[in-house]
Structure formats: C-alpha cells, structure tokens
C-alpha cells in the first residue's frame, strides 16, 4: 500500500449511457471496477477476483424488440412507397428519419442483463447490457477470475449449484425466535384486467366489421368510426397494456408483437395508398393510371388481409389474457436466502 498509488485499469467492452449517468467496467490487477459516472462525480465499486462466486448473463425477451423492428420496417417501406408514388420531399425526409432512428435504436438497444455474485450478495453489472459486448467482457473477466482462484473440477461446482452451501454458523447459543412469515405477495401483473378483455373484444368486433366490409365490397359497413377505432384506438387499447406488462407475463408475446407490427404496417400502408390514390386522381389525367390506383385502393385482398390480421390479433389477445396464469398457479416463494427462496 503505497501513498498515491495508481492502479492501471483496462476498459472492458460494453457500457451504458444515459442523459446524466454512465456506467463502465474496468479490469484492475486483482479486481473488477464498476464506475458509475454522473455529470460531476463518479462512484466506484470493486469486485475482487478472489471473491467472485459467479457471473450470470440472462437475455431479455425479444417481444418488444421484435415489435420495434417490424414497426420500423413497416413505416420505412410505407414512406419509401409513398416517396416513389408521390415524389414529395416530406416522404423522403420521413424515410431518412426512420432509418436514422432505427440505426440509433439498434446500436443502443439493450438485450441482456448481467450480475456478479459474491459471498456478500448479488450486484447487477449495468454496462453488460448487450450480448456481444457482454460475452467479450465476460471472456476477459473469466480469464482473470480463473487465474485468481484455485481450479476445482466441474463436478464439484455442479454439486455447489445443486446443493447450496450451508448458512453461516449461528453464533448465539439461543437464537431469537424466527419472525412470522410474510404474507403471500400477489403479483397483480399476471391477473388479466377486465379492461384488456373488453379492449380485445372491441378489437374483435372491429375486425369482424372490416371483414364484412371487405367481403361485401361495399363501403356501407366501412364506416368512419370503425376506421377510427382500428387506426387510433388500437394502439391505446393494445399496445399500452402490452407495454405496461412488458410482454413478459403474456403468453405468445412474440406472436402478439408480430401481429401488432403487421396491423400497424398494414394501416400505414393502406393510408399511404389512399393518399397516393387521391393525389393521383387530383394530378394525373391518364385514365389508366387512375384505374391502377383505384384498383389498389378498392382491392379486396388488401382489405381482407388487414381484417384477417386484425381478427388474429384480437383472438390472440383474448386467448393470451384469458389463459394467463393467476396467482394461484404460482409457486410459493418462501423466505429469501442467498441462493433464492428456501426449498427451491
């Protein structure tokens, strides 16, 4: 321990940046350093290689990411189509903005979480929030930890994972009586709320009406409120509940995300076609060109397709929420120990 000793740190791949906060990981000679920087200061947390019991990386669900991918592709394609049809700078600008925003999102999106466990407890490592950088960083950390700790056969480690080590020795001869058990926590996020069911029933009605309108080739059923409901109420009724629940507690969330994206893409595409059609009618005089747009606008396959997707989304939503496991299906968590709930 020398005065003003400087430790040589090596920056590890990964990092998490926010508006006012930045998390980075550094490899020291005998420890891992987590640096949490705010604007005007930084805090340090050290994990010595000899103390690290385990490093855990868990992927995040792909549901939300998939939805963003599909929506970006849909909006991009719709903007590009509108650009070619209408030759208006606004569509080009929209396309450029969508592409730039999507690239920014892809470069920054987080797809995993990582933790380090020591004898004291478990700490999250926020800088390791992307799989590729997390794997590279873990390889470097793993090398150092294995050098710092004596080698033990894999079978021994497996036994440690199967049977948690004993709790610390009780010092007092007469330990105090155990506190009364905590009441069973009810996770309300897994209980389907009636509002969701009502929302999906309404969506089902909208889908049925649109299907009738498409099949009958009549605009009598394609009334304004139906379109308004499907275009504008749909995000409020469906996407917000999904975001609130984080899609993690909903069965088949990937399918739901794909359906939502398809409906979003479809509605945007239909609107783009309608707009292009009206522009063509206004500007172009050629009867053949007008006919092409009118065919596109009134084409039954597009409307039927959109109605089918809308119905599928409504049925998925109803099934997902109605079959979601309630609190009774959940296992008892029991008292919390270092290795999770007792008896797990």
């Amino acid at each position: 321990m020398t005065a003003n000793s400087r430790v040589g740190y090596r920056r590890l791949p990964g990092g998490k940046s926010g508006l006012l906060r930045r998390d980075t990981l550094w490899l020291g000679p005998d420890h891992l350093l987590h640096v949490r920087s705010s604007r005007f200061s930084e805090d340090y947390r050290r994990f010595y290689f000899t103390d690290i019991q385990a490093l855990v990386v868990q992927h995040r669900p792909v549901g939300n990411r998939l939805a963003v991918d599909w929506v970006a592709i849909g909006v991009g394609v719709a903007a590009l189509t509108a650009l070619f049809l209408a030759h208006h700078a606004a569509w080009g600008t929209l396309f450029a903005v969508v592409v730039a925003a999507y690239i920014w999102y892809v470069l920054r999106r987080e797809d995993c979480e990582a933790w380090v466990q020591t004898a004291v407890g478990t700490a999250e490592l926020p800088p390791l929030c992307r799989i590729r950088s997390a794997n590279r960083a873990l390889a470097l950390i793993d090398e150092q930890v294995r050098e710092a700790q004596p080698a033990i056969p894999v079978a021994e480690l497996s036994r440690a994972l199967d049977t948690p080590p004993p709790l610390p020795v009780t010092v007092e001869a007469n330990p105090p009586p155990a506190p009364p058990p905590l009441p069973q926590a009810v996770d309300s996020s897994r209980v389907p709320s009636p509002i969701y069911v009502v929302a999906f029933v309404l969506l089902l009605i909208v889908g049925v009406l649109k299907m009738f309108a498409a099949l009958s080739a009549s605009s009598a059923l394609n009334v304004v409120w139906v379109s308004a409901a499907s275009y504008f109420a749909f995000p409020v009724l469906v996407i917000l509940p999904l975001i609130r629940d984080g899609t993690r507690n909903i069965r088949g969330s990937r399918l739901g995300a794909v359906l939502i994206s398809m409906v979003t893409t479809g509605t945007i595409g239909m609107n783009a076609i309608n707009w292009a059609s009206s522009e063509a009618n206004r500007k172009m005089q050629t009867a053949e060109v007008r006919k092409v747009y009118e065919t596109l606008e009134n084409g039954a396959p597009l409307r039927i397709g959109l109605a089918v997707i809308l119905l599928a989304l409504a049925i998925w939503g109803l099934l997902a929420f109605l079959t979601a496991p309630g609190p009774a299906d959940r296992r008892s968590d029991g008292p919390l120990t270092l290795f999770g709930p007792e008896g797990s």
Partner: protein
Amino acid sequence: MKLQSPLTHCHVCLAPIAYPAEGATVQCRCGVRARALVYPAIFRMSDGSIGEAIQGDGEAACFAHEGKRAVAACDSCGRFVCALCRIAWGSRILCPTCVNAAEKRTDLLTRSRTHYDTMALTVALGSIVLFTISVLTAPIAIYLAIRALRSPRSLVPRTMWRAWTALAIGTLELGGWSWLLVYVVMRTGR
C-alpha cells in the same frame, strides 16, 4: 420485483433455473436464454466469527479488544488483531485503523471522486453564453480548473482537457474584462 438470486432464478418469469457448471447456455421455460460462470469461491462462506476470548496468560490479545485472542498481525503496522478486527485485503491482513488511514492515500480504497474539471468547463461554457455574468463566473471557472489539476484524478484514465480548456476560457474572459476596465478608465481620464 427481483427477489430471487439470478444464479438460481430467471429474471423474467422468476422460475428456477438449473445452470450447468461448465458455463453452457440454458433456456428457461419462458424462452429466455441464460448462462452462468461459476467459480470455486462459491464454496467459501463467511464463518460469522467474532473472536474468541483469551483462555490463558500466554495468549496475545487484540490491540483494540483486550479480552479477545489475537489471531493475526497487521501487515502494515504489526498490531495484533482478533478475528473481528482482521481484514483480509487481497493477500494481506490489515487492521481497521490502517484501512481507515489508507483510504485517503490509495486508489485501492477510494469510493468516489468529484469531477472538478467538468464543473469548471460547464461554468466556463455557461459564461460564454451569458457573457455579462462572466465577470463573476470566470474566476470560479479558473478556481475549479486549478482545483481539478491539483486534486486526485479519476481512478480510470481521464484526460485533463476539460480543466485546461476551462482555464483558457476563464483566463481569456478575465483578460477581456481587465482590458475593458483599463480602456474605460483611460477613456474617462482623457
């Protein structure tokens, strides 16, 4: 609500996960993939020892606790320490006094640092935008920049361009105000 340890439970559905010790990727029933690297330290748990009482006259006592039996000597100051006072720091054994004294002298115990250079640069850049108050903020920026240059730096590599830039801006602003003052005085004197 993450109550369970990530080493034993999925962070998404909270279901138990059985990790293989060789570090292979496993898939939870909710579809989330995960991987754990397990090390021999998992066998080492705290023994909860608080130090034993002295049994006979021939035993050394802890420097801080007279009634407790010494189990080691501090590698820094040589004082005897009991099991409660013994602090394992890497490969060395230290007493609490040495750890406390060392906290300000070594990077190995520092828990936080203040970025005076960022503060200085912020004040300096702010005074460019609001030039009229720079007569007040320029000295502050210079003070903060000098403090940044004299204070212990960040533990991790960090250049000092912010401090130097703030110093330059602050000096220029002060120079400008000085010139203006001299100019006004000379004009008034004529």
